[in-house]
């Protein structure tokens, strides 16, 4: 007889869960206000999203969006950098501002009774920023120091070179959204002021407030602080995304490295791609979970790495697809071969039902975990606001995941994965990995040095 505890216990009846109800309305001069009331929470999450990310830059000014965002938190006309930091911290909040390709954002999280005062400071910062030249120069130098620093971090080195080698020269996506030393070095506070004046405008902006708030109160607070914020912005440009194409290996030489940071991939797809859901499920099956094919093979069977993953980085235009792992130097060529074989395997045949079921059940089951916090709920609004998704995006999300079958996964792999064309970037010890790579005959090899331009 099997003892009772030998069997996996049966689940209880699931409790229904849906993404929290939210409302949105235009406010003042074109700003869109989104409110997610979560009455039983303690914290309020506030996020201001503007169409002033790196996609809104002009190329010679690469990195200005990120520096503009960072400079914003160094004070207002009324308060210098330190005084502004003190004012926010007296409320128990830290205002952040940053920028990615598709959006520049600023916000904070506050105990419920402090958020109106926090919103006042945020609005003051956005509308009457100080843009002190000394603070800007300091932040630019810190950014340059960070880029310099990144050259000693193998993971960041591999990321940077992967983008550089995968996109054609005319694509801004060939660089990091924060810019390169060449583009950042000449930037001035005047350019930050101009980027702010042009892009931090209400007409394409969204204010998201999630937490124990009443819609009327939020409307009043937002009206009072941002209601007469005015101006219009040109928004983002269209990003060209040509893939250089062709199987190649780029070794970023880092003598003495005990591991190789590996990136294998090519240009992927844009956020609005019709195969968004099949692509999501397919990538999760290949490299999105602990049990995924990549992690099982490279970590749990071969012990080559602490972890391996693969994902599409979907942006307004086609961002990269990549598989990634940090693998022991001695097995570098083998790890590349295994990775390519797994990507090819996705195209060879549909996954079996059980394997697919597990991935789909994960993506569906993990849904409530993603929106547990007020910050999580606010983050759930961001893609709807920024990419103009249907407002029932989260309401239909699980059904659309559930609808992905083995055939769709296979089709997505055939259509969207191009292992024969994949770029292979390795940040590691070139002298030690090169002979094996040559013997494996995986493609032409180019060795570069981290500081090469």
């Amino acid at each position: 007889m099997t003892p009772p505890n030998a069997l996996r216990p049966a689940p209880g009846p699931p409790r229904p869960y849906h993404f929290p109800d939210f409302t949105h309305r235009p406010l003042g001069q074109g700003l869109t206000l989104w409110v997610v009331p979560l009455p039983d929470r303690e914290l309020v999450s506030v996020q201001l999203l503007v169409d002033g990310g790196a996609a809104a830059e002009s190329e010679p000014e690469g990195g200005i969006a990120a520096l503009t965002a960072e400079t914003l938190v160094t004070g207002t006309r009324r308060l210098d950098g330190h005084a502004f930091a003190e004012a926010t911290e007296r409320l128990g909040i830290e205002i952040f501002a940053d920028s990615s390709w598709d959006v520049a954002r600023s916000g904070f999280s506050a105990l419920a009774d402090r958020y109106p005062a926090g919103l006042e400071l945020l609005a003051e910062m956005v509308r009457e920023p100080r843009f002190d030249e000394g603070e800007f120069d300091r932040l630019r130098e810190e950014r340059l120091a960070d880029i310099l620093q990144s050259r000693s971090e193998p993971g960041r080195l591999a990321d940077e070179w992967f983008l550089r080698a995968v996109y054609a020269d005319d694509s801004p996506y060939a660089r990091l959204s924060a810019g390169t030393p060449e583009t950042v070095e000449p930037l001035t506070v005047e350019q930050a002021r101009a980027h702010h004046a042009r892009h931090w405008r209400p007409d394409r902006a969204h204010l998201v407030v999630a937490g124990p708030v009443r819609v009327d109160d939020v409307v009043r607070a937002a009206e009072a602080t941002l209601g007469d914020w005015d101006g219009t912005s040109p928004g983002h440009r269209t990003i060209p995304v040509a893939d250089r194409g062709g199987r190649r290996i780029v070794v970023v030489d880092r003598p003495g490295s005990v591991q190789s940071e590996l990136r294998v991939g090519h240009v992927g797809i844009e956020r609005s791609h019709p195969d968004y859901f099949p692509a999501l499920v397919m990538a999760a099956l290949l490299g999105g979970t602990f049990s995924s094919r990549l992690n099982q093979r490279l970590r749990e069977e071969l012990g080559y790495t602490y972890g391996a993953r693969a994902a599409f980085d979907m942006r307004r235009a086609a961002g990269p697809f990549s598989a990634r792992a940090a693998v022991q130097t001695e097995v570098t060529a083998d790890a590349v071969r295994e990775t390519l074989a797994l990507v090819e395997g996705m195209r060879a045949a549909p996954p079996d039902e059980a394997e697919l079921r597990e991935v789909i059940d994960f993506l569906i089951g993990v849904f409530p975990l993603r929106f547990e916090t007020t910050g999580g709920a606010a983050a759930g609004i961001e893609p709807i606001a920024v990419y103009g998704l249907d407002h029932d995006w989260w309401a239909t999300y699980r059904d659309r995941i559930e609808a992905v079958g083995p055939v769709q996964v296979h089709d997505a792999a055939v259509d969207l994965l191009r292992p024969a064309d994949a770029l292979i970037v390795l940040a590691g010890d070139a002298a030690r990995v090169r002979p094996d790579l040559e013997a494996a005959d995986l493609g032409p090899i180019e060795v570069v040095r981290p500081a090469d331009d």
Partner: protein
Amino acid sequence: MAHIPIQRHRLDNGLRVILSPDGRTPIVAVNLWYGVGSRHEERGRTGFAHLFEHMMFQGSANVAKGEHFAMVNGVGGTLNASTWTDRTNYFETLPSHELELALWLESDRMASLLPAMTQEKLDNQRDVVKNERRSSVDNQPYGTAEERMQALLWPEGHPYHHSTIGSMEDLSAASLEDVSRFFATYYAPNNAVLTVAGDFDPEAALAAVGRHFGPIPANPDLPPSPIMDVPDSLGGEVREVVPDQVELPRVHVAYRIPPFGTEGHQAFDVVSDLLGTGRASRLYRSLVRERQLAADVAAFVFPWAGGSTVLAVWATARPEIEVDTLEAQLLDDVARLATDGPTDDELARVRTLHAAAAEQGLEQVGERADRLSQYACLFDRPEMVNTEIERYDAVTAGQVRQAMADRAGADNRLVLTYIPAEDAAEDAA
């Protein structure tokens, strides 16, 4: 959540059970703290507690290798584990109707890990852990700093002298016999705390806990804690310079301070915030904003309860800045806190920031469960989670000054400096 509900139970086999119901989202967290970490390791087996943690995912009597992850992920749950000096924790957050799955998985490996162990699995996870060490320590700029800090702050043979990740040599030496002995010694219900937080019915959950964990025998011979005594002070300044694959020098300064959970420790939580939390903090203001000597700064204490623990600060030099200049100013800023103490406004700010951060920390059921396990495992007082803010707010400016004067002087100071390897080579030439 001003007051987290806490129900305490203890099974006959000694397992402490903490229940904290909250039905706002239909998810539940299961969290286990075992009272074993790298400070319990035998000589020549550094890194073993952590390697053992990996073995806990390699299957048990009724769970195949890989199934633990697959089953929890397969219902939409997330999971992981971690090892540190004083403890090893295992945790799952999953849709609430699958609570019993997590209890079953955790109990199966607590009850019956050894029948599933094989040399092949050990060899595989040894390789994985060695790659973890390469990724997080050996192949990372400044990656060895924490390890060097431990080695210099505590004498040879002291349980905090070595890092949790351990040495490659010791990892190579670990055997299946070590796995068996470690399991039998430490992975017993009377050396663990099980916390359940989130959406569940306490009565039904307690019954399920009893069903799954109740039959597991206690270990009547839990070893006593290793001896952790060291003098309060290092007895002088300790200095080391490490040439590394870095672009910018970084200076770390560290001090031995009283153990986490003691009154003497509390002031240093406040100290680390005054020095390094937020853009208005002293080190950010002085080193980053005003003097522009540092590209970034940090200040922190480790919540180690086994014996003396550490207050550490570090700053990365900006390009063209001499690391000696940076160090001198950093030490001056730290010393000033001992002479001047914090202003009322500074204290009020860090208290407000801390209260908001504490609330944010408890927002997720997983984090809440982990804190409850922590206080229950280390002090047998899970209720301490509800007095975090009061305890912090009780620290006065006078206590900060005194704590700094007692512990942050040159006689108790470690200065560990990372410099670019090329610079070191030039100096030698």
